[in-house]
């Protein structure tokens, strides 16, 4: 099905939605960088939408918990998802590429930003991606990848190994399947 309603004066275009597209907001990152974004893209973040609705968005919206680099990424995401012509398939492909190249630290930043800004789609995508990186990996590997130092005592580690042994029962003997 071809998308014909690319022209702004389509029949069923909600005037309010139209206004949102033309209105721009300014988002300010923790390190003072300012970004312009159309309102229709910005309100994909529930947190920003609430701020706009409560009318506390007097010109510039400060986002003290998001740094400039992360905010730039998030805005790329928002713009793509607010794009008129983008099909679901396109968006999905974009999501895939958007997160695939990210380093672990960046993923963490983005997940925190998406959590703070309440951007459901992005949050889900990034969480899934983080989870993918810890699937079927040894505990040691996960610690290394996520730069986490164990804060368990050796005794506790030993105890956990015993305690969790049940989860791998029958997993290793793959031969008979």
């Amino acid at each position: 099905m071809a998308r014909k309603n690319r022209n702004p004066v389509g029949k069923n275009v909600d005037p309010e939605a139209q206004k949102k597209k033309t209105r721009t907001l300014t988002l300010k990152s923790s390190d003072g960088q300012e970004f312009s974004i159309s309102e229709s893209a910005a309100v994909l973040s529930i947190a920003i939408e609430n701020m706009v609705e409560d009318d506390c968005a007097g010109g510039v919206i400060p986002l003290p918990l998001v740094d400039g680099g992360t905010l730039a990424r998030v805005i790329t995401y928002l713009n793509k998802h607010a794009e008129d012509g983008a099909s679901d398939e396109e968006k999905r492909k974009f999501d895939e590429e958007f997160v695939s190249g990210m380093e672990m630290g960046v993923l963490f930043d983005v997940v925190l930003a998406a959590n703070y800004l309440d951007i459901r789609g992005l949050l889900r995508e990034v969480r899934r991606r983080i989870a993918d990186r810890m699937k079927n990996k040894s505990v040691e590997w996960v610690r290394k990848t996520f730069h986490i130092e164990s804060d368990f005592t050796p005794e506790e580690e030993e105890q956990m190994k015993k305690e969790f042994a049940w989860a791998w029962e029958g997993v290793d003997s793959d031969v008979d399947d």
Partner: protein
Amino acid sequence: MGTDGRKTICNPIDRYQTLRLKESLSTPFQYILACKELSFILKNAYSKFPKNLQSLIFQDTLFAFSLLPEMQTQSAISAANSLLQSAEFTLPKQKRATAITEHKHAVVANKRKSKAKQEEEGIIPLPQDVLIHIFSFLDMQSLVSASAVCRSWNAAASDDHLWEFLYAIYFCASDNVGQNGHKTHGETEREGHSLNGIATGVGIDWRCAFKIAYKGTCYRKFKSYRGYCSSCCSVVWISSNTCANKSNIKDGSNHQIKPISRQQIVEYILDGFLVSESSSDSDSDTEDVSILKLWAYPRQIG
């Protein structure tokens, strides 16, 4: 110049320089030792040294402090602290003040740096709710692994809801209760209560319940890490976040996932749909439940 062939170093400052303390300070793994040595020299011999050596030692002390921000260990900080104590003890007024200021700056810079480093490496601990959501994409084994990573992960990975969902997927999604997820869920709950409610009173430890049920089944079905989602008619990886493979969740329907064996996956590939395991499946399911019941009571004692 020595006349006896061997070069004797007659000058204290030259001898000090052969210690190559400055060089050792710049080497991270030697920093602590060098710092302690310098501290000892400063404390015990500074007043006996000629002026030029005193000045050199003072410079090295400042140099040691200036390197502190690069050091990552707590023992480096305490080594620098003991050097500061020696400096406070021996140095004349003006130099002492300089050393103290320098040390103070170094400690602040060290803290800032280690914090920045943590951020850069992504060690910023994620909030529990974010962790729990991430973990909801994991299969059971990976979830257990995650809980062994560190304390905060352990707390998140022990979340009751995660295990409750996994329990529902692994043990409750049989063919006869497929249409309504909530119904299945409710049944699980009731069943669980009848099992454990008496002793625990409030709620169920779902991880425990899972463990018990898991131990009581044959693992064949779960070995594949795969489940079949009847809503999407596709094979997905099992995790408590149902149907993680589907990014379009806007239909809002409840995706029921049923664990399947590798054999069933093959069948799925061959036939394009899941051959539901005949009556034997429900038989084994009831068997699971009975085993579960048998297991339930020893748990209360243990």
